[in-house]
């Protein structure tokens, strides 16, 4: 006989009851209730340790949670389009330490506002989706941390049949030292809507801070939603992200994660294709140089017959960089006709660099085809030689090959200027030498 033992609440350093009491004030009761529930759940989940399978390669000690203090919930304001390529988007959102700025004149059928505003103006949508069905199995410490403490909440809703040509840009720029930014994004694409969102994380200087982000995406029947995350934080940033998407009948979700900045990053992307003909694409690009540590996990969950998913993650490790890719394709009992694959390719460019790859298949259904492939190695010497016989020197040839290696993922990014920026970032990383 075993008796039920109450596990004591376990808080990560800096995110305890005192911190929570300080954060919840003046919000809609709906939001407060959710925060409290999340805070309770979060306290009940044991703190992750390097003994847990999920943290074996990325010790939670690397996050050094105690160094960071949660920034107050960010207030909403208006925003003028000012940045160089703001004009290239239908909607621009800017999030800084103090302000969540929104561009004026939203296109018809598009709602973009703070989560707090949404709780007042669209309570029915918040009820139905916020912390809803897209979220994964319980027990994810950092997701609950965000659920309880988020301080930059954004709500995006695109109405039925609305097509955004240029898409939405969300730009983050953080300056506060030792702050904890907890961005929270809820995206709902109604039936037949089409749009893309680019999240651009930037912090230009050495400021150390923590970003613990959580995002939920819902794509209803026939919707086509593309989400690109360009993580280019400064070199002292710890980045944790939990992305969860749910894709209905005939809908297509495209989740592209580009990890280049920060010091340590732990990212989880989960996508459930839950009705027939639902389709998901998960793209990833990561390049760990210097002493960067990138850990990414993908889940392709097939919960219905005739669902499709493709995953392509491409990474490079240079200097003392360390990258981890871990992924699962899961087909639940009865989901026949699934077609899914995972590809993870890694370049190890230097002695001292390391890459781990753990693709996985958990298949419990019939009449399907699932596969994965993973490779590791340096640049192909034959390709290098070929380029050199055309007069291109070794350094340039290596650059061309590395850019070529990543190109398939880069091509998934809408907006040519962003593709160019990616090329520049990759080149810069190649040029940096570790002394």
């Amino acid at each position: 006989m075993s008796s039920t033992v109450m596990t004591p609440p376990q808080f990560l350093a800096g995110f305890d009851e005192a911190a929570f009491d300080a954060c919840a004030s003046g919000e809609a009761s709906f939001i407060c209730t959710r925060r409290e529930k999340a805070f309770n759940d979060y306290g009940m989940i044991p703190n992750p340790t390097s003994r847990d399978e999920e943290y074996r390669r990325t010790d939670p000690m690397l996050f050094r949670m105690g160094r960071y203090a949660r920034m107050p919930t960010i207030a909403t304001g208006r925003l003028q389009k000012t940045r160089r390529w703001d004009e290239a988007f239908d909607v621009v959102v800017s999030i800084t330490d103090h302000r969540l700025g929104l561009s004026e004149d939203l296109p018809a059928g598009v709602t973009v506002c703070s989560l707090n505003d949404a709780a007042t103006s669209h309570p029915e949508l918040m009820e139905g989706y916020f912390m809803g069905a897209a979220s994964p199995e319980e027990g994810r410490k950092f997701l609950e941390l965000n659920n309880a403490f988020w301080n930059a909440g954004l709500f995006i809703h695109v109405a039925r049949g609305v097509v955004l040509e240029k898409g939405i840009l969300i730009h983050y720029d953080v300056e506060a030292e030792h702050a904890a930014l907890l961005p929270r994004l809820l995206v709902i694409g109604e039936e037949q809507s089409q749009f893309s969102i680019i999240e651009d994380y930037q912090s230009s200087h050495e400021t150390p801070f923590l970003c613990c982000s959580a995002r939920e995406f819902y794509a209803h029947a026939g919707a086509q939603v593309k989400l690109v995350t360009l993580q280019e934080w400064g070199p002292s940033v710890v980045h944790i992200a939990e992305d969860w998407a749910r894709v209905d009948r005939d809908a297509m979700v495209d989740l592209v994660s580009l990890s280049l900045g920060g010091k340590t990053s732990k990212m989880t992307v989960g996508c459930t294709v839950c009705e027939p003909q639902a389709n998901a694409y998960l793209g990833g690009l990561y390049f760990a140089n210097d002493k960067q540590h990138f850990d990414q996990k993908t889940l392709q969950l097939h919960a219905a017959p005739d669902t499709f998913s493709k995953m392509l993650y491409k990474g490079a490790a240079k200097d003392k960089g360390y990258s981890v890719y871990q992924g699962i394709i899961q087909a639940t009992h009865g989901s026949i006709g699934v077609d899914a694959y995972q590809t993870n390719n890694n370049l190890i460019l230097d002695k001292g660099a390391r890459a781990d790859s753990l693709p996985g298949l958990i298949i419990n259904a019939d009449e399907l085809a699932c596969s994965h492939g993973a490779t590791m190695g340096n640049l192909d010497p034959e390709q290098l030689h070929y380029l050199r016989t055309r007069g291109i020197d070794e350094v340039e040839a290596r650059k061309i090959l590395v850019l070529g290696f990543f190109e398939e993922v880069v091509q998934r990014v809408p907006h040519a200027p962003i593709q160019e920026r990616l090329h520049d970032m990759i080149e810069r990383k190649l040029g940096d030498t570790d002394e």
Partner: protein
Amino acid sequence: MAKLETDSKLVQDYAFGFTTEIEDDQIPMGLNEDIIRMISDKKNEPDWMRAFRLKAFRHWLTMTEPKWAFLDYPEIDFQDICYYSAPRKPGEGDDVDPELARTFERLGIPMNERDRLSGVAVDVVFDSVSVGTTHQELLEEKGIIFCSFSEAIQEHPDLVQQYMGMVVPYKDNYYAALNAAVFTDGSFCFIPKGVKCPVELSTYFRINAENTGQFERTLVICEEDAYCSYIEGCTAPARDTNQLHAAVVELVTLDRAEIKYSTVQNWFAGDEEGKGGIYNFVTKRGLCRGAHSKISWTQVEVGSAITWKYPSCILEGDHSTGEFYSVAFTNNRMQADTGTKMIHVGKNTSSTIISKGISAGKSDNSYRGLVQILPSADHAKNYSACDSMLVGPDCSANTFPYIESENDTAVVAHEATTSSISEDQLFYLRSRGISEEDAASLVVKGFCKEVFKKLPMEFSVEAVKLLELKLEGSIG
């Protein structure tokens, strides 16, 4: 009068499920230091061996059962197992108890010297002890030592002390520690410098006694330029309780030596409802210690209720090679979590992994494998291909590769597929007049062919027959 019969409905499709009624010499159930001393006394062991067992046991007490595998089974009560069971010694002058000889004849294992034509030297382990080794003279001429582990402890203590635990230390894992504490017998092979073993060496394991665990230990050593091919086969009677098997196999190759290790594992798998069957928790590992040496594992896993097994290679010598070829078939309620580890330490080391999993019924079949390239392993190469086939809607097939590379000159490529048995292929064959069951059998055999052809010839034929037998009733 002893009798041989298949007296249980459990064993309809398990031809090896009969029991042998033979007098046993058993010790009491349970596990403690006294039991370990008792085992050691029974075997009249030297002090160093007894000390090794006790050290391992004390360490085991500090460990917990691993839970990471994709397996689901009730907790094992380690006190409810008998750790030593031996058939009582036959009278003076007899080679082998005639009842035992009949048992092994029925299993197709030649126990008598007159059966030498098979070109296979056999050591037979019945429950906890070795009951006879054939071909001794021929092997002795070449300087090859092939005997039971107990005999090796008595006759070749230096070699045993030098190599035992070198590849699988007693601290390695939960089951390896348990084995080190309680192992009762097994085989010992030593191929000296420059000798190519002229016959296949083989150990045949059979668990007979009820509530008995089998904990054998095998050690194969090939010195410089030596070669041997080793075959392991296993069966057990069909019983409706679970029996534990926790073996340790260690292989060591020195410069330019090669060991080819083949297994056909056909322990009783339990009945359709998952009642009974062997829990098979095995640690098998080879150390390519010398340059240009090679270790090749081939396994055909068609039995056991639970299989937890990862025959591995540590590629320490420069230019050494590791191979793993596996067919794992599960049906009914069987659960298998099996694969390999290839640890690349030396320069220019290479490894190949070919794994074929077939799941039918309500079984779970998982491949789990690690490819690790250490910083020292310049120009290491690995290729892995893991294919799973699902037969029916209620089984699961899982693939969990772990790839770690810390060297920029290494090349690793892994690919895996999971698919259902092809309707198109079945239809094509059936349109040519082949029955559905035969068609499925052909497709499955084709799927596994790459692995079967790695087995020694006669053994390969046996393995194919065994798979056919297992497939009957799994399809359609």
